[in-house]
């Protein structure tokens, strides 16, 4: 019993330290995280819908999910490039990274729209 409570406390301490560590993250990275979360959740909802009613317009399902997943991946890439602690992207200005992100998204969604049917 005591052990369980100590596990709970440990977990609580772990979460607490995680939250405090995350609080130090810059706001622009937090925005990107939020965006990634938004994309992933949207993809999840579509997967659930597919599980319930079947995959009939399969290309529509795929394009919907891949649109979310793709943009999430691109957002993750953007986050990597924007993060100042990543030394290898030190010389890359965040504006340039954002321009890449916009361009990739436009290309991705052109393909997605073509595939949507």
């Amino acid at each position, binding site marked *: 019993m005591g052990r369980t409570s100590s596990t709970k406390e440990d977990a609580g301490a772990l979460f607490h330290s995680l939250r405090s560590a995350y609080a130090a993250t810059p706001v622009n990275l*937090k925005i990107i995280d939020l965006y990634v979360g938004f994309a992933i959740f949207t993809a999840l909802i579509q997967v659930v*819908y597919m599980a319930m*009613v*079947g995959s009939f317009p399969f290309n529509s399902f795929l394009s919907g999910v891949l649109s979310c997943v793709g943009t999430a991946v691109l957002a993750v890439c953007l986050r990597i490039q924007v993060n100042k602690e990543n030394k290898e992207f030190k010389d890359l200005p965040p504006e340039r990274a954002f321009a890449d992100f916009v361009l990739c998204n436009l290309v991705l969604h052109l393909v997605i729209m073509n595939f949507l049917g």
Partner: protein
Amino acid sequence: MARRLTGFLVLLLVVSICEAAFLFQPISDSHRSAALELFTPDHGSFKSLEETYEALRTFQILGIEKKPDLTATACRSISETVGSSSSTAKDFFYALKANGIAECKIDKNASKGIISRLNAAVSGASSLLDFYYSVGGLVLIKDQSSEADVHLADADGVFRSVKAFSQSDGRWRYSSNNPESSAFAAGIALEALAGTVSLASSEIDQSLISTLKNDIIKLFDSIEKYDDGALYFDDKLVDGHEYQGPLSTTSSVLRGLTAFAAVTAENLNLPGDKMLGLAKFFLGIGVPGDAKDFFNQIDSLACLESNRVSIPLILSFPSTVLSLTRKDSLKVGVSTVLGSEVPSVTVRLVGAFASGSKDASLVESQELNFDKTSGLHILNDLPKSIDVGSYTFVFEVVLHEPEPEEFYFTGSQTKVPISVTGLIKIENSEIAVLDSDLGNIESQKTLDLAGKNAISLSANHLQKLRLSFQLTTPRGRSFKPHQVFLKLRHESKVEHIFVVGNSGKQFEIVLNFLGLVEKFFYLSGKYDMELTVGDAAMENSLLVAIGHIELDLPEAPEKAPRPPPQPVDPYSRYGPKAEITHIFRAPEKRPPQELSLVFLGLTILPLLGFLIGLLRLGVNLKNFPTKPVPATFAILFHVGIGAVLLLYVFFWVKLDLFQTLKLLGFLGVFLVFVGHRILSHLAAASAKLKSA
């Protein structure tokens, strides 16, 4: 007249039903209805007076009631023509001809004017047709008006100048400078000469008349003949527009002959069978479909009926098929070509021959009884020697009073095809299965070929099948029908047909299955049997299913022939194919609409969460450029992205890839430009901030 006609109509109706190749029937009701159809005025009147005359004349001959409006319109155009100063001799001729039937009133002064003008035309005539129309017109007006002074001053001269066109073979030329001669022109010339004779104030030179008689006889020497005895005149096809065809030519000659015979007291010495041949020609063409041909036919027949040379008599038959079983009597009607009554005659049956045989006559000459009520000559009982079959009967018509015999001509003998039918007695019909070796009867059954049979037999390949029956005619003689077949049909539709032979009355066929095994393709099993006995003269021809026989044949050896493939029903081969129904993939099951809408709402939830999260993070737009130029670029950048996304929506909804890419190219260049400007501005700003 009308009552006599209606009496005949009943007879003619019956007459028109029967048909035979060499049988000539008098004019009947079918001609009357055809006449009413052919001579239909166009908008109330005919195209010309010639057509009007033809219509009126045809109706008059056929006894069709004249329509008052037809006569009225005819009278109007007649008086127009008569009164007109531009009318030619031909116009006068047809106007007067039509007037002869329509009986309109012609002004006395007008007729005087016509007479003088026609007289002038006669003296100025140079061609055959000129003479024909002018002389013909004078004859007509002499008949119609009370003027007694219509005559030709120089009839002899006119006669000679018309005669000058004649040729040595009896044909005539149209004019002196036209070398071609024709029989059609001969008819016209005869009519013109007849008119000249009747208009002559003094007697015409008799030597001229007798040379003309010789011409007519020469003309009749050139008459042509069909196989059925019909005679006709025809011109050699020399000149397209003057060629008239046999019907017009024959008709013209006949009209001329009748007209000439009417004015001369002499006997023309033309044999009656020539006139009968001409009658056969006109009757043999049936009902012509052309108004002109129709008029020629009817007018010629009227000439034949009323001429002074000889009037042919035609035998007609209510039926040429007689049944021995019903005891039909042989009925013969005698009438003229137009179907009117004739003086009392006796019809004799002088001979009867079985078709195709040249044997002596089967009957003795006998007289047919005249039945006054029906107007038919009847032979009540067919002679005993006449049995079922087809025959040629020979009739002879004899006039009772010798006085008019010069005029009526009956033909020496008339041959008529007659079919005699009857019920054939079928007796002793039985079917049996025999043992092959000894001929012992294994099983025997009696058949009733008139009724239904359901015989069931069985045999093996060592046995025989025997079918026998007897056929007897009503007169008790043997009868050999055209077709006597036994047909065996296997279950697999393979058929075998056997001809049943006969010896006298007895018909018998024996099928030895041992010899037929190969022909039957070793097919064991049930065979349906069908017997056909058929003949045109057999009233009870039959095609009966007898029953079936179960055959037990040996197994087929290796090399045995296979049964031929059964012919495919042509209907199934060339007929319509089965309808093709397209099977479409069933539409996928779609989720209920409510569920989809719920999930549409659910997908918005993360977006809401995203926006709430942004608010929680305290995101703001303070970094948005405040200077006008960068702010413009910033706004344009966002508008550009929005425009590209909107373009994607249009791509999804209606545009195709090429249109989208084209627009995207322009938008992309713009976006790159403004994006580069705003982002480099932001980068410069942040660099300034860093360095500061």
